[in-house]
């Protein structure tokens, strides 16, 4: 019991300035790295199998620790995710999550909420780039959206003042804003990006978004080589649909981030192709597929594993296994660009296993 408490206290102790100074050396390929895998529901297990197969073929030194969502509520976490699963992510520091359908009912927290709160996942990173060969209306998208994941409009604090009048609180704190701004600039620097744009509505919400902007400006001063700009959100929406090439890295509070990251996913072809990664305190990275669990095609070998595969590539980049990440990413992009093997949602007729086989061949 005491050791449990101690582990929990140490796990949640956070010092933002050293959270991702990368004290762990990941680049050696001789040691295997343990990573937690949540296959998820619906098409989850099939696409997780795809990822495992591709990683095996590419000789990625990762050992998977699989965990499943139980059917009993764990009283320690108040949800269907067990304490052991969460401990495993904390221990390993990296994880990959398939789509999880939150069971309907009361008395437990949503699965995504549990993960977010317990692992203190404060930034959601979505790289959006046009897939060569898969034609959408936009061909030159190459941007990253970084969204603050813990507070803002999604604090869940609402109440009815009197009948017919409801108030909802939007909370912005200096600590959370600094944290996500730091991560955004750090990401820009380590990935060779030139510009960071902060998206806001500070002309109307002067104090809240004003605080967010102030924090971004403070962090921007520490990275003089990266250009920093501020864009009002309605301008941003308009510019994104007219000319997405104008943007590079976008950092924003929770609600705008939700909308803009989905908008950018729409620009490149939908949630079935978009990778996503959640960053937590202490350098934890949980990559995930943001699409749904698609119960109607579960088990039929029709699912498109691209989202989960690209998310696993972001996970590899976080682990600094850049050469493996590049190989797998190139294989995926080449397979899609060729057009011979595409799953049904991209307009083709291949099965999941054929598509995975084609990617392995391209490695």
């Amino acid at each position: 019991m005491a050791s449990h408490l101690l582990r929990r206290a140490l796990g949640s102790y956070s010092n933002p300035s050293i959270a991702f100074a990368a004290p762990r050396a990941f680049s050696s390929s001789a040691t295997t790295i343990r990573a937690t895998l949540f296959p998820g529901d619906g098409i989850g297990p099939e696409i997780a199998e795809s990822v495992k197969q591709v990683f095996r073929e590419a000789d990625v030194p990762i050992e998977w620790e699989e965990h499943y969502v139980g059917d009993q509520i764990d009283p320690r976490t108040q949800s269907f995710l067990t304490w052991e699963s969460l401990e495993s992510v904390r221990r390993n520091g990296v994880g990959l999550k398939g789509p999880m359908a939150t069971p309907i009912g009361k008395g437990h927290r949503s699965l995504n909420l549990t993960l977010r709160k317990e692992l203190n996942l404060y930034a959601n990173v979505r790289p959006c780039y046009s897939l060569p060969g898969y034609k959408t209306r936009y061909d030159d998208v190459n941007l990253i959206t970084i969204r603050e994941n813990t507070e803002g409009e999604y604090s869940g604090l609402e109440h009815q003042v009197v009948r017919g009048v409801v108030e909802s609180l939007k909370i912005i704190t200096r600590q959370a804003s600094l944290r996500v701004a730091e991560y955004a600039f750090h990401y820009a620097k380590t990935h060779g990006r030139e510009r960071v744009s902060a998206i806001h509505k500070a002309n109307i919400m002067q104090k809240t978004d004003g605080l967010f902007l102030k924090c971004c400006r403070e962090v921007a001063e520490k990275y003089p080589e990266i250009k920093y700009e501020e864009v009002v959100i309605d301008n941003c929406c308009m510019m994104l649909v007219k000319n997405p090439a104008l943007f590079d890295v976008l950092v924003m509070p929770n609600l705008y981030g939700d909308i803009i990251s989905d908008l950018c996913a729409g620009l490149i072809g939908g949630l079935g192709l978009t990778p996503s990664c959640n960053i937590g305190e202490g350098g934890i990275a949980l990559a995930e597929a943001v699409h749904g669990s698609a119960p109607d095609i579960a088990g039929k070998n029709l699912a498109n594993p691209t989202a989960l595969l690209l998310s696993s590539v972001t996970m590899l980049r976080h682990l600094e296994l850049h050469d493996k990440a590049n190989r797998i990413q190139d294989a995926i992009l080449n397979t899609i660009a060729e057009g011979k093997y595409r799953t049904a949602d991209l307009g083709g007729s291949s099965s999941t296993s054929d598509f995975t086989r084609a990617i392995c061949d391209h490695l």
Partner: protein
Amino acid sequence: MARRSVPVLKQLLSNSPILNQTRSVTYMPRPGDGAPRAVTLIPGDGIGPLVTGAVEQVMEAMHAPIYFERYDVHGDMKRVPEEVMDSIRKNKVCLKGGLATPMGGGVNSLNMQLRKELDLYASLVNCFNLPGLPTRHENVDIVVIRENTEGEYSGLEHEVVPGVVESLKVITKFCSERIAQYAFEYAYLNNRKKVTAVHKANIMKLADGLFLESCREVATKYPGIQYNEIIVDNCCMQLVAKPEQFDVMVTPNLYGNLVANTAAGIAGGTGVMPGGNVGADHAIFEQGASAGNVGNDKLVEQKKANPVALLLSSAMMLRHLQFPSFADRLENAVEQVIKEGKYRTRDLGGQSTTQEVVDAVLAALD
């Protein structure tokens, strides 16, 4: 061969909207309807004076039965001057260029002030593909009706402790009901088939839940109009992928801002979309989407602002004042200029100045 093609030609001609509108207007005016109406004009900041000047020129050329009472208001004023408010209250209709809102200042935006004091609770943006203007998306014809007074823009913020700031988003049944009522009424009177409510009630269950409840109640009173609901992030994704599925959209304040600007962007840009703010007693017409309505210094210097949005908004204003034939003539002229493509400003891919576009519109007026 010629005999068989005549009925086909007749069919084509009767379906063509532009040719239909050159027929004479068929509404019967009441005696005295033709008397000139006063309209308050606020040129505003940045490109505002340029584009409102364009409207004035066109109105004069058409001999439209309106005359402008011009007032100078700038974004850095603390409040809208009382005389301007009195003028708008007297005339009931106003045409406005953009007013710049200072950032992070502590001054409440003047636009918000106008909306609150005159209770202009519905903001409307009509986003549609203009024939001849190439865009990535086809078949776009969306009207975004946005609640204009409450929601996230209530302006109620405070610092709890240093480093922690709260902002209140207020949703009331009263405001949600009347905006839903306006949206369905608009759809009904304009022969629109579908109303979509945009929300985020899976996260903000009480606030957006109340908004949705009000929309559902009003929907039951209009059984002939289809009603559905969509979450705001999915909505933005669908707008970029398949915008033809949307018709009329009703949204709370913040989402409306985003959705309107996104829809304006996909349909041709904020330089061409008309819009207005309307309340029970007053109406203010301005460029539809709020992004870029003040423009930047370069546009002002080179006088290359796009007047199309404000011209089409003034056509909406003419319809609101019940002068439909003038509105038709103005819209036809503008559409013809855009279709020809010779005079287009920079945001539409051309190089013309504002005045050149205005001259082209004047020449196209019949």
